[in-house]
């Protein structure tokens, strides 16, 4: 009887612990929610600044800087590591940083936030490319441009299920893509004066859905069920229908 009681107590304790650890699982995305809104904001896919795990990371062409934000008013410099390949963009997801470079995507682990550790490098032909991530897939646009005239114009779907060994799962031809962003099962890409919408419910195989003309569109931010697009003459905001169709809400010029 006594043994059974102890066993019962053990099970009860174990259940409590499981409950606790589930509570303790923090959202993987960098924008943590509090009752008063998010504590950090979000930039577009072309950003060189990102906040993750309470650190600010800055990607310059040749360096990755880290600053601790434990005292938000006084960021504390915690180091810089050399980067190669002409880094242009940074994207944080969970414990990883994805750096878009002119030669591919560099992946760093930030479980030790002060000193990012190199994990792997996805290499493609020289192009300009931002990158975004959902689940075990990274989506990078490659484009030709002033600094990357040798490049291709395409979307690369990169399988990162083994983070140390990213590989190309599919490439889709585009016109001259730049910034991109994900909302639920939709991937939106600024491509040659249009916002193109791809369905990524089958993540490894994006299927083209529709497009919205937007002159000089170069980056997007997804916020709830709206899309903010920055273009050569201002910022346009759209609502996103369940089918991924954009309806213009306003334009700041």
């Amino acid at each position: 009887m006594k043994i059974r009681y102890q066993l019962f107590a053990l099970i009860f304790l174990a259940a409590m612990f499981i409950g606790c650890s589930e509570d303790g699982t923090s959202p993987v995305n960098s924008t943590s929610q509090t009752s008063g809104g998010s504590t950090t904001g979000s930039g577009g896919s072309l950003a060189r600044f990102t906040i993750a795990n309470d650190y600010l990371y800055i990607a310059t062409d040749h360096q990755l800087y880290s600053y601790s934000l434990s005292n938000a008013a006084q960021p504390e410099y915690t180091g810089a590591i050399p980067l190669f390949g002409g880094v242009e963009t940074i994207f944080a997801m969970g414990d990883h940083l994805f750096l878009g470079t002119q030669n591919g995507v560099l992946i760093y682990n930030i479980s030790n936030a002060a000193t990012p550790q190199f994990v792997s490098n996805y290499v493609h032909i020289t192009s300009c490319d931002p990158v975004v991530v959902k689940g075990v897939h990274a989506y990078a646009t490659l484009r030709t441009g002033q600094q990357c005239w040798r490049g291709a114009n395409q979307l690369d779907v990169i399988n990162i299920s083994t983070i140390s060994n990213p590989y190309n799962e599919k490439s889709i031809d585009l016109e001259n893509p730049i910034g991109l962003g994900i909302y639920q099962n939709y991937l939106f890409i600024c491509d040659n004066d249009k916002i193109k919408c791809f369905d990524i419910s089958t993540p490894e195989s994006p299927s083209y859905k529709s497009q919205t003309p937007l002159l000089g569109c170069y980056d997007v931010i997804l916020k709830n069920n709206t899309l903010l697009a920055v273009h050569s003459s201002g910022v346009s905001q759209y609502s996103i229908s369940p089918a991924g169709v954009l309806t213009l809400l306003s334009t700041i010029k």
Partner: protein
Amino acid sequence: MKKNTWILLLFIVLASCTEQDIEQIVGLRPVYGTLADFNAIIKSEQPKELNNIGKIYVFNELLFINEVGKGVHVYDNTDQTAPKPLQFITIPGNIDIAIKEQFIYADLSAGLVTIDISDLNNINVTHLDNRYLSSASQQKPPSSLTDDIVSNRIYFECVDQNKGIIINWEKVQMPKPSCYLIN
């Protein structure tokens, strides 16, 4: 004899004219200062027209639009059908920002600045870090200021590091300097 003297004089005058006549061009001149000078420069102002915009950033109901190399436009985006301009924050050399709580982290020509925006009408620089002072920005004008120049050579006044940190660059008429970038 007298005639010859006049001709000689004329020659001297002409020769000195050509020597002084150094070509005037529009070039970039470094503005030197100390980190403390940024406290006076970084301020919020009345909203401005969008001109040469860069990246955007969203923080809850606020929308930030970068004005390349100059600062950020701040909008109240509570009603996305009618965003309202609130302020323009002057941050020389700015391209990127990120925000945590009430603090903006922004790059600028001389490093990384932290700005408390809890009161948008009275913003306050709380920190400046010049370890993120890219050595390149202290030797030549940043591309954010040269992208719109179409000539083959972008002239700038040669940098004298003894004069202090470069906190900004200004476009001015100047005698053609010996320093230039190939565009």
